[in-house]
C-alpha cells in the first residue's frame, strides 16, 4: 500500500513538474521571436531538453509503466499549458487576435510535430533516469550491506 502511494506520488510529482518545460518549448516553437530565452526553433535543442525533462520522470517513478504513463500525461498537460499561454493576451487583456484567421488551428498545425519529439525524448530520458536510479540503488546497497574493509 505504501509502495503504491509512493508510486502515485512519483507519477503526480513528475507530471506536474515536467509539464512546464514542455509548455515553454511548445510556446517558444510557436512564437520564437517574442519568447525568452529564444531557442530559435532548434529541434535538436528541443530533443535534448525533452530527454532532460524525461530524466526526473524516470528517477521519481520506480515502476516503468508509471514512468511511461507520466511521459504521456506531462506531454498532454504541458501542451495544453502552452495553448493557455498562447491564449493569454486574448483572455487576460482582451486583445484583438494578432494573427487573424485560423488562429488556434495554426497552433495545432505548427506544434503538433513536437508532441512526437517530446514523447520520444521523454522515453529516452525515462530510460536514463531509471538506469540512474538503479545504479544509485546498487551503489547504496553495496555501501550499506557490502563487506566492510578491515580496520
Amino acid at each position, binding site marked *: 500500500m505504501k509502495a503504491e502511494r509512493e508510486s502515485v506520488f512519483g507519477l503526480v510529482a513528475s507530471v506536474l513538474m515536467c509539464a*512546464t518545460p514542455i509548455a*515553454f518549448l511548445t510556446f517558444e516553437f510557436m512564437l520564437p521571436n517574442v519568447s525568452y530565452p529564444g531557442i530559435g526553433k532548434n529541434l535538436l535543442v528541443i530533443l535534448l531538453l525533452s530527454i532532460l525533462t524525461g530524466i526526473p520522470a524516470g*528517477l521519481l517513478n520506480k515502476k516503468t509503466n508509471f514512468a511511461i504513463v507520466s511521459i504521456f500525461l506531462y506531454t498532454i498537460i504541458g501542451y495544453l499549458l502552452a495553448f493557455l*499561454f498562447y491564449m493569454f493576451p486574448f483572455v487576460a487583456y482582451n486583445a484583438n487576435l*494578432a494573427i487573424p484567421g485560423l488562429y488556434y488551428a495554426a497552433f495545432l498545425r*505548427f506544434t503538433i510535430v513536437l508532441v512526437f519529439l517530446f514523447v520520444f525524448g521523454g522515453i529516452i530520458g525515462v530510460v536514463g533516469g531509471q538506469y540512474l536510479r538503479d545504479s544509485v540503488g546498487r551503489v*547504496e546497497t553495496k555501501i*550499506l550491506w557490502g563487506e566492510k574493509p578491515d580496520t
Partner: protein
Amino acid sequence: MARKEWFGLNRAVLVLTVAFSLVFLAFSVTSAVTYSKINLAQEQIVMENEKRVAEILPNGTLFIGFSVRIVNPSEYVIHVASISWYSEVLNGTSAIPLASNYTTENLGVTIAASASTDLAFGWFIVGDLFEQLKGFINYSDSKGVVYTLLTAPYAHSFEFRGWLDDFKHDYLRENYLNGLVTVDLRYTYGLGET
C-alpha cells in the same frame, strides 16, 4: 537506513526538478506577458491628425502636402522600415501623379517608446506637371465639372511600416512571426475607399 538514503536521493531529485520546473514556468510566463504586451502595442500605436494640404503660394506655385502624427504609447521603440506617401489627381480611369516620398530602413529612423512623432510631406508642383494639372482642370470645366487648383480631386496614399523593438522579424516561411512584431499603418483618401 537504506530508505533514508533513498529519500535523500528523492529529495535531491525533487528539489532539482522543482527548480527545473519553476525556471521553465518563469520563462513561459515572461514570454506570454511579452506576447500580450506586443498584442496590446499593436492596438495602441495609431495615426492621428491626418491633414491634406493644397495651397497656392504667392509666386503661383501649387503646394501639395500631407501631415500625420504617429502615436506610440507602448514601451517599445519602433524601428521604421519604410514610410511612403504619394499624391495624384484622379482623372476618371487614369491619374496624374503629382508627388511621392519614400523613406527606407537604411536611414535608421526610430520612434521612441511612449512618444509621438509628427511626419510632414510636401511637394511643389511646377513646370510641365503644373501645366498638365491646369489642362485637366480646363478639360473638366469643358465637361461641366468645375475644379480649381485647390479643389481638384487630389488623392493621397500614406503607409507607415515599422518593427517593434529588436524582436526578430526576418522569417522566410513563418510570415505570421514577422506580422506579429510589425506596425503597419495605412491612410488613403480619394482613391475610392469607402
